[in-house]
């Protein structure tokens, strides 16, 4: 984590902080008037989200921009959250001291890896307008809120305080604020709309923070609101110890010197993740170090040998020493269903598919990739798709072209998945948006500006795999759409046109209307399944109906199967046709024999879901003749699901799984809710 933090710390003594700020403002996100405003909003909102997460509070965040002096480009920024609040004594540290806080040293996923922190905003405000930042903070245990105007003594790198006091924090509705922080600050800045704007930053933030409600009042007074779509807070992330694969020589030397452990085995077990007691012995054996050696007195040669073992360059019995993966509970992915909801709430569209890969490791750092694609009519069809990049739930808005995440999108030939892409390279075109999120304990950027992710083979590999997966989902969706359009045509043909031909021809000739059954059977010559999945506003349930039409000249017998979101806690109600559970999320109905021209309808409701959770029901069949509109049940896949279920039953939720790290093992893809669109049943792949 060498970077801004350490450089800043070193620089503190030699130059004044304001001079440093002035010199490095492009690193700190304060280079242009537009970007400065975005950065200020970003620092404030990140702080609020982090505080709420730590306090296990569902965030309600308001961001308000007001033009103070249009000519001089002076804007007032006000943010308010409902976080736990900051105790009075800590306010000046949080707002008036650079690098306050512990997260720079912890190995875990955090938003704050990026940026200078809220102090930068205080400083920028002071440097550009000469004004102080007004802070109001209320904690639950105190009756009144603390207020103070914070400035910076840039020579001493210390906060200055003015107008300190306490007040009752009354809300516009007459009630009193329980806890939270409000910041009001003036700065030079320019509000713009577009791809790089405060609006876009907040919109993207709301996508990856589905548990947050964000209100934005723009300089024109227009109110934009993104409401929370889940009450589930992100998992609390734990700090982890370094993993041997991510350790450098200097670091190991320092750790040894500072160690008070009496034996190397204990040292390895206590200070590293992924090292079992067996592994610690093997590591030492490979490095030819005595198990009982004292870490403090380890010779440089030994340390170097140990690093070589760590890196897998020095072998034990011809093989690298097996280590456990670092625990992945330090990561907090958004999860497929929530990304889906986040995307759906900000972009109105028909089709969303998402994919959260299993955690993986690069250089001892756990990471996890999540991607999503939203496709539909609401978006421009002839423009490049919108790329939504995120690192640890923070939107990346600049340097799109140089970012690993963009490159991973560009590396896929999207033409085979139904998007336009000239030459099969570059960002594809089409009515779609692609989301990529990297959650990692150590996000590597191309530069200090922290807007583009640096190349990394493992991350690229994982991201690409995820892209291919959602690509397949998209293709399946498009194929299904095409098939459905064809089926709908056939229905129109036999339900509307043929009867009309019969009637009209009979009336012209003055003869009786002939019976149509024969013609219809001849024309269709098929068994057709039609399914409908619609949200019922009144009952707050999802109504599903599946109708099977026998348009052949023979009697047919089938078992129909349907997927339903059992894993998401949905309930199946009013299923009058009965049937039985075949596997988790797969229900089956054995149907009576259908005579030619006969139809049968299965109807049920799904309870316990929200609107948009389940919009499409995949139907499968068992039977001799093909069914248009359904896929033949793949019994092997069904067995796979059953097998996974029995595995899941015995699985504890331990993060550190026993796996071979070198070479990296292919992680199994767990079946998760929201993955319905990716289930590869049927023969149409």
């Amino acid at each position, binding site marked *: 984590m060498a970077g801004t933090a350490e450089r800043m710390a070193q620089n503190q003594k030699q130059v004044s902080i304001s001079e440093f700020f002035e010199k490095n403002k492009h690193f700190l996100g304060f280079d242009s008037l537009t970007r400065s405003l975005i950065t200020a909003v970003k620092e404030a909102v990140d702080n609020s989200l982090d505080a709420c997460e730590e306090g296990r509070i569902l965030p309600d965040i308001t961001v308000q921009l007001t033009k103070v002096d249009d000519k001089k480009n002076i804007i007032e920024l006000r943010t308010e959250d409902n976080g736990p609040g900051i105790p009075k004594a800590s306010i000046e540290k949080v707002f008036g001291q650079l690098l306050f806080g512990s997260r720079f040293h912890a190995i875990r996923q955090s938003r704050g890896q990026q940026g200078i922190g809220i102090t930068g905003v205080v400083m920028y405000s002071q440097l550009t307008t000469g004004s102080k930042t007004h802070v109001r903070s209320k904690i639950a245990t105190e009756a009144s809120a603390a207020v103070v105007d914070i400035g910076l003594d840039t020579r001493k790198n210390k906060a200055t305080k003015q107008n300190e006091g306490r007040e009752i924090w009354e809300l516009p509705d007459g009630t009193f604020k329980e806890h939270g922080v409000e910041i009001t600050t003036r700065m030079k800045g320019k509000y713009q709309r577009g791809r790089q704007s405060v609006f876009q930053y907040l919109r993207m933030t709301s996508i990856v923070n589905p548990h947050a409600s964000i209100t934005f009042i723009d300089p024109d007074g227009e109110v934009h609101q993104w409401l929370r779509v889940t009450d589930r807070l992100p998992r609390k992330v734990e700090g982890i110890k370094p993993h041997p694969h991510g350790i450098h020589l200097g670091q190991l030397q320092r750790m040894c010197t500072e160690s008070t452990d009496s034996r190397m085995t204990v040292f390895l077990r206590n200070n590293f993740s992924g090292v079992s007691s067996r592994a610690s012995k093997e590591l030492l054996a490979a490095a030819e170090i005595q198990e009982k050696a004292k870490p403090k007195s380890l010779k440089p040669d030994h340390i170097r040998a140990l690093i070589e073992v760590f890196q897998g360059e020095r072998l034990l019995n011809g093989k690298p020493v097996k280590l456990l993966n670092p625990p992945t509970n330090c990561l907090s992915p958004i999860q497929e269903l929530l990304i889906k909801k986040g995307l759906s709430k900000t972009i109105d569209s028909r089709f969303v598919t998402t994919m959260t890969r299993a955690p993986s490791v690069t250089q001892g750092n756990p990471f996890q990739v999540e991607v999503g694609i939203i496709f539909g009519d609401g978006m421009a069809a002839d423009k490049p798709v919108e790329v939504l990049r995120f690192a640890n739930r923070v939107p990346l808005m600049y340097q799109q072209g140089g970012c690993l995440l963009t490159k991973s999108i560009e590396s896929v030939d999207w033409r085979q998945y139904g998007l336009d892409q000239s030459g099969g390279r570059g960002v594809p075109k089409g009515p779609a948006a692609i989301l990529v999120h990297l959650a990692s304990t150590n996000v590597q950027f191309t530069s200090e500006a922290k807007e583009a992710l640096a190349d990394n083979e493992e991350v690229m590999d994982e991201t690409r795999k995820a892209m291919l997966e959602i690509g397949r989902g998209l293709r399946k969706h498009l194929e299904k759409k095409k098939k459905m359009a064809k089926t709908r*045509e*056939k229905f*129109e*043909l036999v339900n*509307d*046109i*043929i009867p*009309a*031909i*019969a009637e*009209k*021809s*009979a*009336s*012209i*000739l003055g*003869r009786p209307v*002939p019976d*149509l*059954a*024969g*013609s219809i*059977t*001849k*024309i269709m010559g098929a068994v057709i399944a039609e399914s409908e999945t619609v949200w019922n506003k009144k009952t707050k349930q999802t109504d599903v109906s599946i109708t099977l039409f026998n348009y052949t000249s023979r009697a047919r017998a089938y078992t129909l199967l349907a997927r339903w979101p059992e894993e998401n806690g949905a309930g199946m109600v009013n299923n009058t046709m009965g049937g039985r559970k075949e596997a988790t999320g797969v229900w089956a109905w054995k149907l009576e024999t259908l005579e030619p021209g006969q139809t049968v309808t299965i109807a049920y409701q799904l309870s316990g879901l929200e609107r948009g959770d389940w919009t499409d029901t995949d139907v499968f069949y068992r039977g001799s003749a093909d069914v248009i509109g359904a896929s033949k049940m793949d019994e092997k896949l069904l067995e796979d699901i059953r097998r996974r279920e029995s595995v899941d039953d015995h699985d504890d939720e331990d993060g550190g799984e026993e796996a071979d790290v070198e070479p990296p093992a292919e992680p199994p893809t767990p079946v998760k809710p929201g993955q319905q669109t990716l289930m590869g049943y049927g023969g149409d792949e």
Partner: protein
Amino acid sequence: MVQGHTKEDTKDALHDVVTEMYDKIVKGEAPTMTLPVRTKNNIGFDERLGVYKYGQKRSVRDATSLGSAKQLLRALYVVEFIEGMINEGKSSTLREMYYISESWGLGKFSTQNESNNLAEDLEVVTKCMREDFKLRPEEDGARMIGNLTLQERNRRGEWMRINARDDVGDSGYGVPYNVEEEKIELLEHDINFLMAIETGGMFDRLIENGFDETYGCGLIHLKGQPARSTRRIIKRMSEEWDLPVVVFLDGDPWSFRIFASIAYGAIKTAHISEYLATPSATYLGITADDIVAYDLPADDLSSKDEEALKAELSDPRFATSWWQDQINTMLELGKKAEQQSLAKYGLDFVTDTYLPEKLGELGLA
């Protein structure tokens, strides 16, 4: 002389189309409509009629796809509509029928082209003419000037006697869309031959120069690809008055096709070639040879022109050695010339030199 169908014949022919669909449904099959293939690969010379007609190739339009099923349904609506008009003594334009179809629900046309094509389909299947169907085209017919007299029944049902030289202005006699006997009777003439002219500019040039009087001919302005009524009245005059017909067009592949439609029958209307085509018509010019012989200012052939010429090489109507020579010569030259390029030698060149020379070859001047 060929005649149109009677009302009852027309209705019977239309009912045959409906019966085909009805019977298929009764038999438990998809309704169908059988019609001749309408491409150059399915036209052949009819020895008896002396024109090109559709051959034996048939295509079946069946209601197994939504598109063709809708076509069949539309055909039924059109049949019903035509029957209504026949019974009530009304007529409508194709465009009017297109708008009327708005109330046909599933049988509604989505473009006017569809309605035009369907009217043609029904003609082809029933071997009736759209005049029998009481459907009028949008386009008006040609203009004629010359010492010929005919009578036309006006809106009040009275016969009007018109001499196409003395009773008309400079724009000549306007040929109506219906030129059948119920509407027009050819009375008398004092001309030696008929000349059909492609462009209005050339038509007006010949009139200004008094060519019709000097050479005793009737002039007909075709207005590009001639309307059916234009072709029909040429045929009637040629047959009833036993007059030679010469055709004076631009020298390009499209003019060749215009000539073929006048003399041999058009591919699109090959079902009624015997009503429309004048097999005795002669192509006067501009020929490919003329371009060279008169050293006419010429344009390069476009790629579309070349394609059209190559297609004509395999068109049965251009199978004679004279046409094959002309087409190949034009391809070799890589040039085409307009009628009005004759103005290179002065405004009177066409009437004083070119036409007399060309007509002289035919013994008409």
